[in-house]
């Protein structure tokens, strides 16, 4: 009971420190000095009637569109759908790309057999997969998951592969002199040596995955932020489109911050000496 309580406290503390870590870099006096004039400019310029206000909405137009979408158009539902399928695709690609990357980076024999397969597939732009995926998977949810998976797989796989392969020889040799088995070296040397790069590659995977999620959602599904974006376009609601773009940006930023926070918490050794 006592232990559980302590655990709960730890999780709460972790969440608080995550928010401090992520939003802390945005909510600062210095940034306010930059962002407030920019927002004011955005508010004032469309009111000068240089363009039609329909084409160039003000900040407050977008804010009220956000409120409207939230209250009357199930914005949270669209966000939930997008995030849900995005995370499925991303998690699938992490749990496949990282182990395959580690194996091929570690074992030269396996590398010779299988690496060319990935080298041939990797340069194909993920968007080029859309037509064929449409035929095989239709316009439903599998398409989104597949495209997110496919697009985030290669950056994660290739970077993991490279980081494992490039493990500093000195570390491998010193473990070997002490009598470590190759498997032991993989776990205690290669993996930790590559961990930073692996987390970094997941961040790349997130940004490319989001691109493909948006693209996938523009094809005939009726839910998700990409759908809402296209739907707003059809009704010429520019403020709604701006809201969708901002939300997508926020999701990408937020997920990236989570990975950055993980890196800070796991890779403790990267925090170098600090002045007392």
């Amino acid at each position, binding site marked *: 009971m006592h232990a559980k309580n302590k655990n709960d406290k730890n999780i709460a503390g972790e969440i608080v420190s995550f928010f401090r870590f992520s939003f802390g870099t945005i909510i600062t006096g210095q940034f306010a000095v930059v962002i407030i004039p920019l927002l004011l400019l955005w508010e004032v310029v469309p009111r000068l009637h240089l363009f039609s206000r329909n084409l160039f909405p003000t900040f407050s137009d977008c804010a009220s569109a956000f409120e409207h979408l939230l209250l009357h158009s199930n914005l949270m539902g669209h966000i939930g759908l997008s995030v849900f399928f995005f995370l499925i695709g991303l998690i699938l690609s992490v749990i496949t790309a990282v182990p395959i990357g580690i194996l091929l980076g570690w074992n030269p024999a396996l590398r010779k057999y299988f690496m060319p397969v990935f080298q041939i597939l990797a340069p194909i732009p993920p968007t080029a997969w859309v037509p064929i995926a449409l035929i095989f998977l239709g316009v439903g949810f599998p398409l989104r998951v597949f495209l997110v998976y496919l697009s985030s797989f290669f950056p994660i796989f290739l970077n993991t592969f490279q980081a494992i392969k490039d493990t*500093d020889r*000195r570390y491998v*040799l010193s473990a070997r002199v002490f*009598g470590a088995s190759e498997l032991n070296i993989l776990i*205690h040397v290669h993996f930790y040596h590559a961990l930073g790069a692996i987390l970094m590659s997941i961040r790349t995977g997130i940004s490319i995955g989001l691109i493909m999620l948006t693209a996938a959602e523009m094809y005939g599904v009726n839910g998700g932020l990409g759908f809402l974006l296209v739907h707003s376009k059809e009704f010429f609601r520019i403020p709604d489109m701006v809201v969708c773009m901002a939300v997508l940006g926020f999701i990408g930023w937020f997920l990236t911050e989570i990975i950055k926070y993980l890196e800070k918490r796991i890779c403790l*050794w990267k925090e170098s000496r600090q002045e007392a």
Partner: protein
Amino acid sequence: MPLERVEAGSMIRVEGITKDFRIADRKSTRAVESVSFEVRKSGFVSLIGPTGCGKTTILEIIAGLTEPTSGSVIKNNSRPSMAMVFQDYAVFPWMNALRNITYVLSLKGVPKSDRIHLAMEALSKVGLEDFKEYFPSQLSGGMRQRLAIARAVSARPQLLLLDEPFASVDGLTREKLQDLILDIFLTTGTTILLVTHDIDEALYLSDKVVVFSESPGKVVHELEIHLDRPRQRHCTSLNDYKKELTGYMQNDGVEHALRAHSSKLCCEVLQ
């Protein structure tokens, strides 16, 4: 009979080792050529020579990290326990000081319950007991190398291989580290093989100095140093040894080797 006694007192014997390297498609280059020397049990031997003479290659062959093209390393014990300290602190950056040592102890099969105790002992031997939680990036260069030494000696190896371990620290730290190694040598009786390009260091520490010539690396001379420890740095008797060694290193090593070879041939002819 005398031959056997030599055998029993020997830790490792390097016999006629040659190693060729091939980089990409270029024709292979010879790093070391028919190198032979012996390291006695509880002895301190230094390999000295200019950079690129293949000293490190010899050390890696002894450690079993690479195979020689020809020749062999004869070990007294079939697998003496070895530890190695590298030039640029190859302590693991992702493990703190204590974990670096307990990891090595786990590789040596030390039971879990003894690891922390032994690791702390090793840390205090090098004066790092207050830094056990620190990661290598949070330590200074000298401290990192002390950690590498602590890690190497923690498992009580029979043979300690040192690959220019003091090359990247400042002079004062270097002298302190040399005294640390000497202290470990004198108190534990570990056999030590040191690779260095610093004549003073070799003379201050070792029983025997093996001089290498450049590309391909060959043994030019072996010099036994009969002086009690601890030695005075820069004392007259060390200076005499230094003059002798410098002579061997400055003269063209190959010429020396050839002269030695031809005189040996002459002897054979005369006989």
